[in-house]
């Protein structure tokens, strides 16, 4: 059996793709060709022999295999029809295990690993201390994970978010462990304040990871007790192994801590000096860390969550959001602030929608789209409508009109269909007919709306983009269902795509994502390029910065449009209709759009009361609200706000905020120098003012300077210019938005207000009715959202 080799390693076996019976090459043809290249054997995979599009070829040596790989990659062989072959190394499964057990080199000395910052101190504790430490934690209470048991001290490590809540200290380190921590402080100059005790049974390991940068600062050290193990380190294609004997102390600092993945293979014995050393009945590790509570500014942004890199969401986090409605909906009742470090919730938009009721009367999105051929033929049958012809006549897109429409009358049926589509598309590069009245009117009255959105939607999302993106990954089932019904290899726009979480749902689709926030668009773009873990690169998706009211696409080209949790950020009726008209414009005939918005019928009781109403609203609670978004202090987005405040650049909050909000949350204070701007509700007394300053100092204290002092042995500072300054500079509207950023000391967050319009029953459908040329296919309420699917007719 063949398999992929260890990353980057060359073998004497080659995988050759785009080659085999499935692509029209006969077995003997393939066999003969590779025998001529000196192959020892050619294997055509058995289960799919007749339909295989790849083969495996084995050579006598790695050098031979390498030579052939290079030759084939350079030039497709004429003997195989000049096909461009995909050639990679392969390995034999049995071989690989043998290799690993016997030949893989495991170092006993950390220096031989040649990883900057990695160290191993032998016999850091005595056998007596070892026994005492084990006894101290033996009774627990243990928290049971999937395969091992853990205990936390100082701060609880949340596995879902891979972070700690710095606002919530838990039980202190037990006495003996604290003594070790003191010893470590003398040695390393770091006051470790978080301890995780792990107990591993034989066969149990630790998955590869880099400890979350924003969660911990300085080195991370781990004391191995009771039994040994081999720890593996990986960075890109590089790999090292280090034997950790009992009572040794592993120190990971600098590059070793910030850039290298470390893991313990799940196996029962470890290879060492050519032999297999069985694991002990149990191995207990004491891992000491220092919590950070502010963004990381290391020089390894690729693995740094504070700088937009790092690991994708955990499976636990995905599972909690994706598959368990119970958890999801109970979560969704919590304000983002209350559940801050769990890196989840933007209340209803996503999570609340999860548990969708199958009994919903009008849930169905409808049948799949008509086959494209049928659809275009019917168009061809009837010929272009009057409006189309009219529109075509007006259409000034001469570059396109230059192509003769008669082109369609010649040649095969296929090209006949093609050109009719092109025809339809050309004919429409004009705003939708008939819609002008409302829109024109809107143009005049929408400037206030634009201001509201610019400040309380675009500006805010631009600032919180990184944090927002890190919490957005659940695929809502109703949207998935809509996407599943789109035609094969269809062309789809995702308007307001955020971090692009819907891009990969169907890899055959080409998705044109757009977002009004440049920073959010960038988070989506980054996703396109990285393949991390199970995430594949998405070669058919793209992102643009664009306004949903002025989409940059040609008319009539798209099979589908997603507009998920976007329309509720649009602040006037005219602009809402204008956006729907714009969505319809880019759809082809028969193309469908799905639009979802937050409902005034929030299923979580008391939720509306937590939001800040703007204006009178409707009887059922619909209308305009400010909804808070909390950014934890440890996020770089919060640091940007705090830095702005400290430097005094941010103007006063009261001067231009449209509504007073100081009574909304007693625990929060307006940002800048609000202590000095007395308005009865802001902190007025000098004591409170002092308190405010103290808080700002606290923020400052968590900044760069203290990192310097607490990371004496480190050298990773002074490296990056700091994302914070990057975020604040270069965007003219940022300082304005900081008016509305507030420090919430209790939750240790900076709070940003976002504008929302909550929709009453029927309101969304009413908007769709105002869009000419579309038919409402279905509309439904699902978990605190109103949703509509419409089709262009």
């Amino acid at each position, binding site marked *: 059996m063949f398999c992929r080799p260890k990353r980057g390693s060359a073998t004497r076996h080659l995988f050759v793709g785009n080659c085999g019976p499935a692509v029209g090459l006969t077995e003997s043809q393939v066999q003969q060709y590779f025998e001529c290249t000196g192959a020892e054997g050619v294997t055509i995979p058995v289960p799919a022999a007749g339909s295989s599009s790849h083969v495996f070829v084995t050579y006598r040596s790695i050098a031979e295999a390498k030579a052939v790989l290079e030759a084939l990659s350079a030039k497709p062989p004429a003997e195989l029809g*000049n096909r461009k072959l995909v050639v990679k190394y392969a390995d034999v499964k049995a071989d690989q295990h043998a290799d690993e057990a016997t030949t893989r080199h495991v170092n006993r000395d950390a220096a031989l690993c040649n990883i900057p910052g990695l160290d191993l101190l032998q016999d850091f504790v005595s056998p007596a201390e070892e026994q005492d430490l084990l006894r101290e934690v033996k009774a627990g209470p243990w928290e049971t994970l999937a395969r091992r048991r853990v205990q936390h001290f100082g701060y609880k490590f949340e596995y879902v978010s891979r972070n700690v809540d710095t606002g919530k200290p838990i039980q202190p380190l037990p006495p003996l462990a604290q003594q070790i921590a003191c010893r470590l402080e003398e040695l390393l100059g770091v006051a470790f304040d978080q301890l995780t005790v792990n107990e591993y049974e034989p066969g149990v390991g630790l998955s590869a990871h880099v400890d979350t940068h924003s969660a911990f600062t300085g080195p991370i050290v781990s004391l191995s007790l009771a039994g040994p193990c081999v720890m593996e380190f990986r960075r890109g294609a590089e790999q090292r192994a280090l034997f950790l004997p009992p009572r040794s102390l592993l120190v990971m600092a600098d590059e070793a801590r910030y850039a290298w993945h470390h893991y313990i293979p799940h196996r029962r014995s470890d290879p060492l000096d050519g032999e297999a050393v069985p694991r002990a009945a149990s191995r207990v590790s004491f891992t000491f860390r220092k919590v950070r509570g502010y963004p990381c500014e290391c020089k390894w942004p690729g693995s740094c969550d504070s700088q937009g890199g790092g690991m994708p969401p955990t499976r636990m986090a995905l599972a909690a959001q994706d598959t368990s409605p119970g958890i999801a909906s109970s979560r969704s009742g919590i304000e983002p602030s209350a559940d801050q470090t769990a890196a989840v919730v933007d209340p209803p938009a996503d999570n609340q929608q999860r548990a969708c009721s199958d009994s919903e009367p009008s849930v169905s999105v409808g049948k799949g789209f008509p086959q494209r051929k049928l659809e275009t033929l019917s168009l061809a049958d009837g010929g272009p409508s009057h409006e189309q012809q009219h529109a075509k006549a007006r259409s000034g897109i001469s570059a396109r009109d230059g192509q003769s429409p008669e082109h369609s009358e010649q040649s095969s049926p296929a090209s006949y269909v*093609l050109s009719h589509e092109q025809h339809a598309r050309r004919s429409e590069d004009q705003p939708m007919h008939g819609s002008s009245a409302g829109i024109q009117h809107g143009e005049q009255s929408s400037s206030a709306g634009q201001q509201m959105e610019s400040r309380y939607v675009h500006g805010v999302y631009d600032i919180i983009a990184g944090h927002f993106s890190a919490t957005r990954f659940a695929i809502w089932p109703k949207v998935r269902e809509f996407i599943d019904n789109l035609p094969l290899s269809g062309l789809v726009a995702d308007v307001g795509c955020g971090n692009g979480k819907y891009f990969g749902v169907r890899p055959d689709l080409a998705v044109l994502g757009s977002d009004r926030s440049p920073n959010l668009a960038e988070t989506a773009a980054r996703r396109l390029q990285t393949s991390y873990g199970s995430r594949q690169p998405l070669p058919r998706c793209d992102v*643009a910065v664009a306004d949903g009211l002025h989409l940059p696409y040609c008319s009539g080209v798209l099979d589908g449009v997603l507009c998920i949790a976007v329309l509720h950020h649009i602040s006037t009726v005219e602009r809402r209709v204008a956006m729907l008209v714009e969505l319809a414009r880019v759809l082809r005939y028969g193309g469908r759009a799905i639009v979802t918005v937050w409902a005034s019928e929030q299923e979580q009781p008391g939720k509306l009361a937590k939001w800040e109403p703007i204006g009178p609203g409707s009887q059922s609670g619909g209308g305009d609200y400010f909804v808070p978004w909390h950014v934890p202090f440890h996020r770089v987005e919060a640091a940007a706000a705090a830095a702005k405040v400290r430097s005094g650049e941010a103007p006063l909050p009261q001067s231009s905020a449209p509504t007073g909000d100081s009574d909304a949350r007693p625990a929060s204070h307006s940002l800048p120098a609000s202590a000095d701007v007395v308005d009865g509700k802001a902190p007025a007394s000098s004591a409170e003012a002092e308190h405010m300053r103290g808080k700002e100092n606290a923020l400052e204290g968590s900044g760069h300077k203290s990192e310097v002092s607490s990371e004496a042995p480190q050298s990773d500072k002074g490296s990056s210019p700091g994302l914070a300054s990057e975020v604040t500079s270069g965007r003219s509207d940022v300082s304005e938005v900081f008016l509305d950023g507030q420090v919430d000391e209790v939750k240790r967050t900076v709070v940003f207000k976002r504008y929302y319009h909550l929709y009453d029953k029927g309101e969304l459908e009413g908007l769709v009715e105002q869009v000419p040329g579309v038919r409402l296919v279905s509309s439904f309420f699902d978990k605190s959202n109103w949703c509509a699917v419409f089709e262009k007719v």
Partner: protein
Amino acid sequence: MKLLTHNMLSCHIKGVKNGYPFKIDPVKIEEMDADYDPDFLRHIYPRLEWPALREAAQVMGEPNLPEEVTESMLQNDEEFLRHFHHALLELILEEGALVCPETGRRFPVHKGVPNLLLHEDEV
């Protein structure tokens, strides 16, 4: 930005008649491997403005797209399909600008993302 996307974009500045296609002013072009899937190419072809793709591909360094595409080329011409695939999905405009053919307005492309926001006086 891929040329597939470019093919779907047009300039929507108010009053612009000839907003298609954007001219590409490349500063940095990257290539990304994409899985070759001739079926996708056959599906997407009808949606494309071929002359616009061909012109853009030339600017981006893929000069091998033919002026005319026939049904049989789409079905069997492997070499053509490879070039088509490469032009459509594997050439990425990483830095540069999209230029409106009528007004000359430049829309910057940064880190692979075109910024197509319009100014207030353009809508």
